[in-house]
């Protein structure tokens, strides 16, 4: 009875407030992605999708497996159980019924509540053309600027940024449920020119997408920019991917094969046409893409390029010289069989550069992609048997080197979920857009075994833990010998009600890296990093909420190169119908860049801010979000980092003289 009251109250409360924040677990997963890639993700399709579901919640009575997967908050066991519950017992009558679905705890329900609803399915036999009328149109314009002038804007230097200091972004979007998307994205980074020079057409990056789902036989159709995700990511995965995270049993990759590309990142997408056709239990995807990519071309007796330009920065003459010089043609497809418990797929992708790729002649590049052609094929499967969900993928490249990822999710008890994942990717395996659940940032040279555990011992409590053991059979960049390491994480969450949540997290990671010493050849030594974090959030009064975090970091404790890190912040938020504001104050102190700590920050809508903090300083930011009318919203953000004992911040052309770095952002969005 008390539980029912809780849920009713939660639902009421959540639907009234304007809080824009992502669920804490998603914030943590994004932090983990930023930390493992050493940069913020650029694909904000997830943010856009969650924002859309907030306004148009998913109807659990009609939701497809893919819609539920796109939330990134439910694992396959939970989704399967919902589908089975629906087919056995009919449609859900109310949200309260969710508690009776196996695997759906109160924590799970709290997480998805802002994005779901339970209502009678509408018989929607609408025509394809009507989808063009009933959706949401939106226009978005964003400008941001770092107030301090960095070295790159000094025109006296030989190499300097040619453009102005503003980062500009523009988007037009149309979306009707998950059935029709189209729009334009335009983006210009700070330092790039605008309607001048290399960017004579205005913005540096333009993107158009048109994407339709479920038109008769056609399950998905993409024209323009789109992403392709196959299997578990061994041969092709261009979208955002969460790897090891505090949600230990979410280690499986899930996504439909095609998705529209609606972000401003300049590399991880395809440009062309793609289609997925479905007839009964068989489905097939075909895609073709032709786009220009950047890379530094070297001309000798022949011509080749030695690295792929993925940053999207074209500010200085050398960067501009590399811009969009190489043509990349990609095509591929898959055939899949899908029944309620079994999915089998055969996938293949092929890429061709017009100029061959030949990476620098270093030992760690011995097996890197070289040449003009890349080809991969794989078999992927997933199979549900009672409370076990097996999944995996095995792939080969054009030289017949292999990679495999195989795992299982087990719901051993209503209170306990387990996951295991085995991966074995040869050192010689080559893939261009592969992105699997590996410790390495690229899908190559790794053998590992991961096991995850989730326990829900009592209402409001959740314990997550994982242990990952990995080995790199060949040398890597900055690791001059085969090496192995491990990672453990334990996180205890306590959320008795929507008012209060806290978690305690400890992580221990050992990843060997070359340590410079007196030897002529550097060799890898253990690099142990331990993090301890406490995070509390509390809803106060009706409209205020606060949260606070304390994080400690120990790098190589007890060794000669020991470092420590400390970070703590306190944040207050206010949310009402029209206005929401947030203020955070943070202090951090770490020995160096090696002991940096990543933190998720709230930013303007659709923008990621997950910076890494190192050295000593304070940071604060202020967010404001004001709804002038129901359709016209304005966002403003001001953030500043003050380094207490530095005179220079950053390096190279991003170097700022002084000890402060301030950024302001203004974003306007209009819905119609």
């Amino acid at each position, binding site marked *: 009875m008390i539980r029912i009251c809780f849920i009713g109250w939660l639902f009421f409360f959540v639907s009234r407030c304007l809080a824009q924040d992502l669920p804490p677990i998603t914030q943590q997963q994004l932090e983990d992605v930023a930390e493992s890639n050493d940069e913020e993700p650029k694909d904000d399709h997830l943010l856009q999708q969650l924002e859309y579901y907030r306004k148009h919640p998913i109807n659990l009575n009609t939701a497809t497996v893919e819609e539920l997967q796109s939330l990134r908050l439910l694992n396959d066991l939970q989704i399967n159980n919902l589908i089975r519950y629906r087919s056995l017992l009919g449609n859900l009558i109310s949200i309260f019924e969710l508690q009776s679905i196996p695997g759906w705890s109160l924590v799970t329900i709290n997480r998805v509540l802002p994005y779901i609803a339970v209502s009678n399915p509408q018989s929607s036999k609408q025509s394809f053309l009507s989808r063009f009328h009933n959706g949401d149109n939106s226009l978005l314009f964003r400008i941001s600027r770092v107030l301090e002038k960095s070295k790159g804007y000094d025109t006296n230097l030989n190499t300097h940024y040619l453009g102005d200091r503003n980062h500009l972004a523009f988007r037009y979007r149309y979306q009707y449920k998950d059935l029709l998307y189209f729009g334009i994205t335009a983006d210009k980074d700070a330092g790039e020119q605008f309607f001048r020079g290399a960017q004579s057409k205005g913005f540096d990056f333009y993107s158009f997408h048109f994407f339709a789902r479920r038109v008769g036989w056609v399950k998905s159709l993409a024209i323009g920019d789109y992403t392709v995700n196959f299997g578990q990511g061994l041969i092709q995965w261009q979208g955002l991917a969460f790897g090891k995270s505090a949600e230990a049993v979410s280690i499986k990759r899930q996504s439909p094969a095609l998705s529209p590309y609606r972000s401003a990142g300049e590399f991880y997408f395809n440009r062309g046409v793609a289609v997925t056709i479905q007839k009964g239990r068989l489905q097939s995807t075909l895609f073709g893409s032709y786009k220009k990519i950047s890379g530094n071309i070297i001309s000798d007796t022949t011509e080749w390029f030695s690295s792929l330009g993925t940053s999207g920065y074209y500010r200085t003459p050398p960067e501009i010289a590399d811009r969009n010089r190489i043509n990349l043609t990609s095509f591929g497809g898959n055939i899949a069989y899908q029944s309620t418990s079994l999915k089998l797929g055969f996938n293949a992708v092929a890429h061709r550069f017009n100029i061959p790729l030949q990476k620098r002649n270093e030992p760690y590049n011995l097996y890197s992609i070289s040449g003009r052609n890349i080809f991969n094929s794989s078999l992927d499967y997933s199979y549900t048997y009672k409370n076990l969900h097996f999944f995996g993928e095995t792939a080969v490249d054009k030289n017949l080197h292999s990679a495999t990822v195989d795992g299982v999710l087990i719901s*051993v*008890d209503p*209170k*306990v979920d387990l996951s295991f994942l085995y991966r074995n990717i040869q050192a010689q395996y080559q893939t261009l857009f592969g992105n699997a659940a590996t410790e390495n940032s690229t899908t190559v040279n790794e053998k590992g075994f991961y*096991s995850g555990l989730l*326990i829900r011992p009592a209402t409001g409590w959740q314990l997550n833990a994982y*242990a990952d053991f990995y080995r790199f059979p060949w040398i890597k960049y900055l690791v001059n010998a085969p090496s*192995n390491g491990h990672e*453990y994480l334990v996180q205890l969450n306590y959320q008795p009600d929507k008012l209060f949540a806290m978690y305690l997290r400890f992580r*221990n990671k050992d990843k060997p890296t070359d340590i410079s010493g007196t030897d002529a050849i550097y060799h890898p030594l253990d690099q142990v990093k331990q993090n301890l974090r406490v995070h509390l959030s509390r809803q106060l009064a009706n409209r205020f909420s606060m949260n606070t975090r304390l994080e400690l970091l120990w790098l190589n404790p007890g060794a000669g190169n020991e470092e420590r890190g400390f970070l703590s912040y306190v944040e207050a938020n206010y949310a009402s119908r029209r206005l929401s504001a947030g203020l955070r104050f943070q202090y951090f102190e770490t020995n160096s860049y090696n002991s940096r700590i990543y933190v998720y920050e709230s930013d303007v809508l659709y923008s990621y801010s997950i910076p890494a903090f190192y050295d000593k300083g304070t940071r604060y930011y202020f967010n404001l979000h004001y709804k002038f009318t129901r359709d016209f919203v304005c966002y403003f953000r001001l953030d500043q980092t003050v380094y207490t004992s530095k005179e220079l911040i950053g390096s190279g052309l991003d170097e700022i003289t002084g000890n402060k770095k301030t950024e302001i952002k203004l974003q306007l969005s209009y819905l119609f």
Partner: protein
Amino acid sequence: MRKISMAYIFCIAFFTTRSQILLPDRPAVYSDINAYSSFNKDALSVLSNQAALGSFKILSVAFYGERKFMLKDLSSYSMAFTLPTSSGSFGLVAHYFGSAGLNESSLGLAYGRSLGKIEVGAQFNYYQLRIEGYGNASTVSVETGIILHLTEQLQAGVHIFNPTGATMGKAEQEKLPLIYSFGLGYDVSDRVYIGTEVQKVEDQPVSVNAGLQYAFERKLFARAGVASATSSFYLGVGFLWSGFRIDVNASVHPTLGTTPSMLIAYNSPAKK
């Protein structure tokens, strides 16, 4: 959940090192954490934390063998026996580790009893180290443990091995290490058990060991776990058959390889 005579044994040490020189002589990893489970105890796991004898009122015999890293000279064998009496239970355990050239053996006598929500136990061991060409050295050591029943499903306990710092050898140079363990066991249901322990062996880094056992069929179970000090993990399966319990297990160390092991235990039917 039916009330069963609860013998929660706090099993310690995945890799307890009994001496400064050699590898552990105790079956480590999985059998130890089973001590916390109300359903999964056997004679050998009970003797990792003797306090569990307090509620293990069953006549039981167990044999264990392992071949560390697949090397014959690093084989280890154990035999354990428990005898219930009206006031607590007694246990007897014998370990042998090594080969003719170098071996360790020990014989222990244990007693444990229950005091309501708390159980206590202790064990005296006669330990002998034999090295070919050097003769042998022996000593007597003691270990003691205590277990608390926090809830019907959750137990916690502490075990200390060799608190007195027993030494051996003519000049008293060799010292058996002191091993301190703190453990927690959670019986999620009669099919799933999760146990963890934090163990500190003298002069070694702290190890956090955790394991899970899942009875996927009524008589078949599987288990998996990790030990942080050695970065190793284990996987095993077992089955029950009319009072007998047979476990096959493999523990994998990232550098040194696999250790296969087997446990055969017999629990006589519980007296009601």
